């Protein structure tokens, strides 16, 4: 039993209030097939009760446990320790970038939620409104009723953290929000259209594709931004609504 356990040192970002940020080291025994979040919970439970982090569902649905693991944005609840380190190795855990830090690993994503509301993104949709994906036939709904599916985006903020533009411009709407804006299409809403093509909209993206790289939910925000660009160009330059 014990031979299958790994000794792993977690370098955990710490910051309280106006205090100076630093890293605390916690070395614990882990099963390599546990997830990073499991280890962080155990550090909190047995070593330091003042460690602050956010999580809820443990199965990549709530979007609360986003952190940077060895510099890369991950949902820690589905990130296997085996995939990010080795026996005797280290794992560096940082809070997401581009959000205000509340405490340690927890950030304030209020601005993301506000913007998602502003573009009218709905986290859940009736199945009949499921966005058509290439190669996938739309689901025929046999009976009347509200069969609800979750929209792909879980508002975890990983894409905002990974985006090099959000890194210097807090006003930039950001990948998740722009992807959310595509949910309805741009035709219906003039306010949405001006948000999307405005100074903090789609033209600020510089095609680094990092958002798509880290998205845990296959939203592919970069692709959505490009789709928006196409729609805006058609409408604005050629006067054709697509």
């Amino acid at each position, binding site marked *: 039993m014990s031979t299958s356990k790994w000794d792993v040192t977690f370098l955990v970002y710490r910051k309280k209030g106006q205090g100076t940020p630093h890293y605390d080291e916690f070395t614990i025994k882990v099963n390599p097939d546990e997830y990073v979040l499991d280890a962080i919970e155990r550090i909190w439970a047995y070593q330091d009760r003042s460690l602050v982090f956010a999580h809820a569902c443990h199965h990549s649905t709530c979007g609360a446990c986003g952190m940077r693991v060895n510099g890369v944005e991950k949902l820690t609840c589905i990130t296997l320790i085996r995939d990010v380190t080795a026996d005797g190795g280290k794992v560096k855990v940082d809070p997401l970038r581009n959000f205000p830090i509340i405490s340690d690993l927890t950030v304030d994503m209020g601005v993301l939620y506000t913007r998602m509301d502003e573009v009218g993104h709905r986290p859940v949709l009736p199945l009949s409104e499921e966005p058509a994906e290439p190669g996938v036939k739309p689901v025929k709904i046999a009976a009347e009723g509200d069969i609800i599916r979750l929209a792909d985006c879980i508002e975890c903020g990983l894409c905002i953290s990974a985006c090099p533009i959000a890194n210097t*411009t807090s006003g930039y709407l950001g990948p998740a929000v722009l992807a959310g804006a595509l949910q309805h299409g741009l035709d219906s809403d003039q306010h949405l259209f001006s948000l999307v093509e405005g*100074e903090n909209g789609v033209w600020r993206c510089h095609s680094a594709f990092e958002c798509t790289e880290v998205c845990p939910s296959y939203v592919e925000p970069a692709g959505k931004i490009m789709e928006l660009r196409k729609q805006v160009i058609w409408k604005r330059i050629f006067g054709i609504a697509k």
Partner: protein
Amino acid sequence: MNNSISPPKSGQNTWLWFLKMVTGLVIVLVLSVHLIVNHYLPEGGLMRYEDVIAYFSNPLVVLMEIIFLVTVVPHALIGVRSIILDLNPSKGSTRLINWILALVGATAIIYGIWLALTVASLA
């Protein structure tokens, strides 16, 4: 299309980006021709004053150089503007930057056209 409903600033960004794409494409085409014509057709390239003057005596060359100039200058300055926007300037600074870049662009284009026509007239 009726543009009056949305704030004018928005359309401006779309047009600027579109202009950057179109000029970019023109630059790729013109620059390919420019590099080949400039450096490979004359033996050893355009390395002497007389060679350059003779080269510019061809009106097609002058036209090509001017097309290059009027596409590359806006492309470069729109690009610089978008990099500056990523530095999160205030609204006031953005306006100032727009004016400065427009002035620089106009100067560069007028100077460049004058230069091309002057050199062409030396032949």
